[in-house]
């Protein structure tokens, strides 16, 4: 499995990583400023998983995701402006303001429906794979979910069916809490799983599995590419555990950007010193810094190129925020649209 990544793909990946990072940072600021209410989940620390995985897919493949979905849409190419607008409950939002952060979806990019319930999308994704297989289409279904979803029975049921029916589906379990396995639940809230390794569970159901460093973009990309090939060849589902260290700002309840601050990319190529607080995060764990550092070290991208991209993307996100904030809230009277389709 070649983990290399050529320059065009590296640039595309950089675009995805920075879009996500700057989007999430901007979003945190909006929340701090009281521009939207409610619970939300940032993808900071997991960017390389989503970007690497989605780079390996074809446009016709279908993606399902969770409450922590922003990164997946951005990696897929969804316009950040209607995403931001949706989170702000605006009329111009992806879903006209009906879903909010929990449910960002983009049917035009084959991300049709996002469940905010733990494990909710896993059988849906298997169902889409079943449809593709029964139509003889060369498409795969991919579902992203957290390690917490391994605790839900619905996940087990969907794994079992996918394995029995040899469905073309890639299960990407984003384990952002890799110390939780095998520990008694009493050590932590919420819950835990009794497996010492998460992939024991799909393995017990005869599924092909792979554990990948989720902060290693090229490794993720290669793993999903291989999994996609196996799926299309009719070899059945693949389970990928993408392991990432938890971002220090991932508080139990609310994300806390104040800990690591707005990311200064200069830390990737020595233009900016790495601070003592959260040093391991900046030096080893932050997947965006890591990608930039590796690309610069390999001589494929340089600090200047990266900074130029960053400036453009930062500007793009700022503009998206501005336009989203300026958009109107949908008026109440639209609330009864689309409850049911017209009877034909």
């Amino acid at each position, binding site marked *: 499995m070649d983990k290399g990544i050529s320059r065009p793909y590296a640039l595309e990946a950089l675009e995805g990583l920075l879009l996500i990072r700057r989007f999430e940072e901007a979003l945190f600021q909006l929340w701090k400023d009281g521009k939207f209410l409610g619970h939300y989940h940032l993808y900071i620390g997991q960017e390389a998983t989503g970007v690497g995985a989605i780079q390996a897919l074809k446009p016709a493949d*279908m993606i*399902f995701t969770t409450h922590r979905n922003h990164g997946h849409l951005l990696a897929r190419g969804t316009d950040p402006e209607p995403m931001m607008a949706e989170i702000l409950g605006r009329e111009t939002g992806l*879903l*006209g303001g*009906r*879903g909010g952060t929990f*449910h960002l*979806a983009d*049917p035009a990019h084959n991300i*049709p*429906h996002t*469940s905010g*319930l733990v494990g*909710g999308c*896993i*059988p*849906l*994704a*298997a*169902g*889409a*794979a*079943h*449809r*593709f297989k*029964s*139509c003889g289409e060369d498409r795969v*279904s991919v579902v992203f979910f957290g390690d917490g979803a391994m605790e839900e*029975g*619905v996940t087990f*049921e*969907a794994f*079992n*069916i996918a394995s*029995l*029916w040899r469905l073309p589906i890639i299960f990407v379990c984003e384990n952002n809490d890799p110390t939780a396995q095998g520990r008694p639940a009493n050590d932590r809230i919420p819950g835990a799983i009794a497996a010492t390794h998460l992939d024991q569970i799909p393995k017990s159901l005869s599924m092909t599995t792979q554990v990948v460093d989720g902060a290693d973009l090229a490794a993720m990309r290669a793993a999903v590419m291989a999994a996609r090939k196996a799926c299309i060849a009719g070899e059945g589902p693949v389970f990928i555990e993408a392991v990432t260290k938890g971002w220090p700002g991932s508080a139990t309840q609310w994300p806390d950007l104040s800990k690591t601050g707005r990311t200064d990319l200069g830390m990737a190529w020595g233009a900016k010193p790495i601070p003592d607080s959260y040093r391991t995060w900046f030096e080893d764990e932050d997947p965006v810094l890591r990608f930039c550092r590796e690309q610069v070290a390999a001589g494929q991208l340089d600090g200047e190129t990266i900074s130029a991209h960053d400036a453009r993307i930062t500007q793009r996100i700022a503009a998206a925020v501005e336009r989203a904030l300026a958009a109107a809230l949908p008026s109440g009277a639209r609330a009864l*649209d*689309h*409850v*049911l*389709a*017209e*009877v*034909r």
Partner: protein
Amino acid sequence: MARITFAQAFADAVYLSFSNDPNVLLIWGSFFGLSQYRSLSDRFRKEFPDRVAFTPTSELGNCGIAIGAAIAGARPIVPVGAASFIFRAWDQIQHEAAVARYMSNGMIKAPVVFHMLHGIRGGGGPQHSQSPQAMLWNCPGLELVMPSTPYDVKGLFRAAIQSDNPTAFLVHPKLLDVEGEVPDEDYAIPLGKADIKRDGKDVSLVATSLQVHTAMAAAADLQAMGVSAEVLDLRTLRPLDRDALAATARKTGRVVAIDDCPPHCSTASEIAAIVSEECFRELKAPVERVTRMDAPIPFSPLLEDYVSPTVDKVVAAAQRALAYPKSAGD
């Protein structure tokens, strides 16, 4: 036109659906329970093997698979067996199927038909006798179809499978061997059209599914007592034919609503509430509700009968409505 059983008409409708639309998939379960009619499903199993998938016993996963397949363009049918089992899949039906279209602002759809065998079946006991229609009517975004005759099951199934909405399609196992005239050709009965199964002028008996037959038997008994009862079969609850309901209530001024759900927040309660709203002035007596009692369903027959809606209870309710005094002093 032929005289066939409800089960045969149902199987014919499923077969037609497979034949007419390559998107129809079957996420296997049981259409006909353990009845003698099981073998009727062999026909579509054998003719469309690529579109019939056999499932493990995992209702939540199976229903989720169907919903996902629907989102990806299929029109799946999931026969979950006893309606009781649908409680395992409650979350996917309520939170995914029923909201998918709405949450997407109309961009996607999830046209699954969830078929289940509901109701008090004779010896089903506390865990195999559920009637979830009241709970399902309390779930926005879900069509709710409850046929009572061979003619209706064929036409309503054909409409349900063609609808772009998720649909709960409830059949009472005691209906499977009811016989009736059914056209050979394909037809759909629009959802949301009630049907007057018997004309009458003194009292209206309003029901769905098996309880339409309870109502018909009660109407016959009432006839023998000189009372002319109208029987309105709502056929579908969402969409509801509110006009037909109001019309019969206005016509007779006396309504008995029959349901085999538990009483509180039952479909009979909803019918009572609607009728009282629509026809407050025209009602000559309070709407009578004949439902299952507020108890689990016991196994033994006399116990089961005691808590069930029965012909005698419907007749008694109609008589109470008819005897209701014109004014407090009467």
